[in-house]
């Protein structure tokens, strides 16, 4: 895993010796997904005035970052990267984010709802839906509005959840970033309708047709750097509501009967740490994660307490402007 340095442009007098196509390590299936995603990334840069990439630092974001570096090579990605930090982000996530930004020369924007945090909103006392709305959805909308971004890339995949399965790759959002599932633009061929009325924005999902297995296999073949929390290690956890919650810092309040313990765990998804369940695992490398995934009997969002509240909570959240 030694990614190339920041894409510094040099004049090449001797083009490198070309190699035949098809010798990259990608299967025809992953190659097609990569080509499709790169096409989408370029389409947005060509058609929108001010795009931004949502960078949650998770595995999907890591794949998107990698695709962006490929799509515009030898130029660097021609848009900034926005991280909506809740203040309850895993420390390892913040470290990885800053390391990637420095290494690849990314323009990184970090936004946190300080006001809500000062008002006492936190993942323990605040209703989970309300917490998520204030710290993530509202903060995201505010950040997009204040910068005037007209298109925002997100890492959402259609295999994650039923509401996502019907969302367009180019997901039109009306005033207030609302998604109207009954009034989506038909999406034909590779011909994306990118036109926006004043006040409208677009959310764009280059990984729409990827599955969790595709993401992991791609990470493995392309040797994409990821946050170490995705790999199994001995970590301090407590068991809460049937989930293993990491003790990422001193703010975790132990409830009666809860005990810190050390387990070999990894995370399938990286949300706010007090709301993200770990799975017991011995997969210490990406190959091991894939092996466990193929053997797994539960889908990845299961680890997210945020989504558990209601069957159709994702649909509601998206209507409010969530990714």
């Amino acid at each position, binding site marked *: 895993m030694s990614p190339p340095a920041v894409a510094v*442009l040099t*004049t090449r007098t001797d*083009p*490198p*010796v*070309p*190699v*035949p*196509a098809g010798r990259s*390590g990608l*299967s025809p*299936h*992953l190659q*097609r997904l990569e*080509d499709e995603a*790169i*096409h989408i990334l*370029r*389409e947005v*840069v*060509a058609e929108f005035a001010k795009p931004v990439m949502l960078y949650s630092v998770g595995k999907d974001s890591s794949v998107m970052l990698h695709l962006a570096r*490929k*799509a*515009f*090579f*030898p*130029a*660097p990605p021609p848009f900034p990267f926005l991280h909506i930090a809740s203040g309850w982000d895993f420390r390892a996530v913040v470290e990885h984010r800053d390391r990637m930004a420095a290494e690849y020369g990314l323009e990184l924007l970090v936004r946190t709802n300080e006001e809500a945090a000062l008002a006492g909103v936190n993942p323990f006392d605040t209703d989970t839906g309300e917490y998520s709305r204030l710290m993530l959805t509202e903060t995201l909308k505010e950040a997009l509005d204040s910068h005037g971004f007209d298109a925002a890339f997100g890492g959402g995949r*259609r295999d994650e959840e*039923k*509401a996502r*399965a*019907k969302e367009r790759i180019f997901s039109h959002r009306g005033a207030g970033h609302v998604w109207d*599932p*009954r009034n989506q633009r*038909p*999406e*034909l*061929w590779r*011909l994306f*309708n990118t*036109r*926006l*009325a004043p006040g409208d924005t677009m959310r764009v999902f280059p990984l*729409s047709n990827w*599955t969790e*297995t595709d993401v992991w*296999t791609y990470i*493995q*073949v392309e040797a994409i750097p990821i946050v170490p929390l995705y790999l199994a290690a001995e970590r301090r956890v407590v068991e809460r509501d049937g989930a293993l919650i990491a003790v990422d810092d001193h703010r975790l309040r132990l409830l009666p009967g809860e005990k810190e313990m050390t387990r070999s765990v990894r995370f399938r998804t990286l949300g706010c740490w007090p709301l993200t369940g770990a799975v017991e695992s011995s997969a210490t490398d990406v190959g091991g994660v*894939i*092996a466990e995934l*193929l*053997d797994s*009997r*539960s*889908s990845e969002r299961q680890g997210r307490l945020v989504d558990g509240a209601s*069957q*159709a909570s994702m*649909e509601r959240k998206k209507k409010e402007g969530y990714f």
Partner: protein
Amino acid sequence: MPDTLAPPANDSLPLGLRSELRFLTCGSVDDGKSTLIGRLIHDASGLLDDQIASLRNDSRRFGTTDDEIDFALLLDGLEAEREQGITIDVAYRFFTTPRRAFVVADTPGHQQYTRNMATGASNAELAVLLVDARKGLLEQTRRHAAIVSLLGIRHVVLAVNKIDLVDFSQARFREIEAAFTAFAEPLAFHSVVSIPLSATLGDNIAKSSPRMPWYAGPPLLAHLETVETDLEAAEAPTRFPVQWVNRPNADFRGFTGTVASGRVAVGDKVVVAGSGRLSTVARIVSFERDLAEASAGRSVTLTLADDVDVIRGDVLADPKSRPTVARRFAADLVWMDETPAILGKRFLLKIGSATVPATIRRVTDTLDVDTLQRAPAAQLNLNAIGRVEIESTVPVAFDPYAENRQTGAFILIDRSTLRTAAAGMVVEGLDGGRDVHRHAETITPALRAEAKGQQPLVVWFTGLPGSGKSTIANIVERKLAALGRQTMLLDGDNLRQGLNADLGFDAPARAENVRRVGEVAKLMADAGLITIVALVSPFRADRVRAGTLLPEGSFLEVFVDTPYEVCRQRDPKGLYGKADQGKVINLTGRDQAYEPPESPALVLRTVELDADQAADRVVELVLEKCRHL
């Protein structure tokens, strides 16, 4: 455990050879589309424990299968749809076997959602058409097959579902198969595979059903895993729509894009389709290393050997096989907007990477997807499919959709609402060039007539010289023009100064004169015009022959019945006088016989009517004929 999924191998490419198939399922309401996809996902073991738990909950709340798991609930994603029990939009689902990854578009059966089906079909390589074995082919099945064909899908599976409910009857299956084969014959599918199956019970889904030993073909999943669908794009001529010019500094100018068809290789000659400028591919740049070539579907960055002007929207192509570049083209549209397609409305046309203003110049016809017949139409309503002419403000590069699904496809964006109003498929360019003769017959006389909004007719005035034919014909044309009709007047005297200048007045020359005028009148009528002929045309047989060139009822013989003595007296052109002096020979009525019509459509006795009254009679007749034809 999911034993159908490939276990990761020990090398670094565990799933390295897996290919991909994107297909859609369509069928009528209750044919069991969603159940079938749910069953495929289940049998390929893509279903995870928490999804199954959620499904059991849902099945109790919304299901239609009593205590069984209702596989359909996997697909109906949005809350409102689950409660209504219908699928209202395209849902995408994913499952994987060791050989292939599958992307499934589930599209609704309701007629009003044609647009969603077209959406799902546009990116699919294969369609699974579901039929309920008890019901057989329905209007919806035919409709979906027609849309699938129109959108260029060449591989179809006819899934005869619920075969368990007809006792696994071979006879019933063969009957449905034969009916579909007959219907689909003109739809140009490359492969049609019919499979008897039960989505609910799993027969012939992942495994061959022991209950149908008479069926020797593959189960559905095995067919989907092996069918080859991706050859067309790779074999078509090279097309590379330039998506974005990558110019990070003065030393690098790369043209990014996705190879739409064919392949590009370093050293290939390419032409910029719009400008005709030629260059050579210098490099194919990618992140890891340069490539020697890239085939259809690859998103790459090219550099060219020459400093040619190339911008987003240009198409780089094989100079030996170029796309059409034109402003006007004929196309089939799937109309997707509540506001109908009407003439002259302005849109944005997005084709390849180009987006340009365009208008619909003509609505030619609509396709009746039940009979596959085309009928004249003046507008296209929501979910209609029809042929139109598009005109863009600047030339665009394209290929006929039948030859290239990427460069022949376009969308129309409504300029005021910004909605995607139509999916379009180019039929041919109309500015001349390579396609002009090839499909010339696709625009028929009936379509031209419809475009002009009138019934073409030939009104043939016959009568003695000086009987008043030209005078009346002129008034008739003015009156019809005033009513908005499109007309053409063929006057015998005028034609003799050009087309027929080589002809004399003896009997054979007169016959040839009438033959030529008859042919010209037919062409004019084919062009959609109300054609008025004023010609002595003395011989009955010649007039009859002219009439037979035209469709039944559209040749109106008008006899201007003016007695010889009256004509001689009027003598407006001095012909009778000259004939008396021997300066004109073969004057009809004087030197040659005139054969009056036996059953003319109208007789005008000019001794009783003045010219204007006579013209009114003719106009009445024309308008009445137009109503009845």
